[in-house]
């Protein structure tokens, strides 16, 4: 079985990990309560979606 010959340096490890980036979520504004929300999802602050209200969607944490 192929195994690494040398220990990988911290510099190399960190250089590789420097490319791990998070992308910001593309948010839209809730038409009812003006809070930011994800597209195609019920609003987490007021539960509104397409002029209907979903109590299950409301998030109290975060």
């Amino acid at each position, binding site marked *: 079985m192929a195994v690494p010959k040398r220990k990988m340096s911290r510099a190399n490890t960190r250089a590789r990990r420097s490319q791990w980036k998070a992308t910001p979520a593309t948010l839209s504004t809730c038409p009812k309560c003006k809070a930011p929300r994800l597209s195609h999802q*019920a609003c987490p602050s007021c539960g509104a979606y397409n002029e209907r209200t979903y109590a299950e969607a409301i998030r109290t944490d975060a």
Partner: protein
Amino acid sequence: MPTPTKGPRLGGGPAHERLLLGNLATSLFEHRRITTTEAKAKRLRPLAERLVTFAKRGDLAARRRVLTVVKDKGVVHELFTEIAPLVADRPGGYTRITKIGPRKGDNAPMAVIELVLEPLSPKQATVAEATAATKRAAKKDAPKKAAAPVEAAPAEAEDAPVEEAPVETAEVEAAPAEAQDVPAEDVPAEKDADDTK
């Protein structure tokens, strides 16, 4: 007919998935609205809609077909007697899936799947009415043409509904439009008259 599912089944295997979806369908018809994961909701939708179609047919054979999936007789009764009449006019699309964001414990994307029991919107209703009117017109013409020579009958029967249908819908739409236009036209005309004086 829904397309066959590709990839792995839900749960442990095909039998597990059938049981799982059967239970989800039972809960959906019992409570009219359930919260589940997006994947399960998406798999449930075609099954549930087919069961509603059976319920709209309403005969004993259809009831037995539904009972192979939904094991609870009480729920099947409710589906046939209460839910089916509410969606009688609706041409498919009996369920609605709304995404409600990730679950707290395992971050699974969740969704609410519910039966669409509201009456059809006015626009949808007029379209349905127009199609029904064309069908009725076609049926009325058919017996009249039966007496006429056989060769002429099919050609005329095809023409008749096409000509009549737009006229009927146009009248319905034109009536309110005229009612709105009349006062709007009068007001500027009077203003012009005042200006000339």
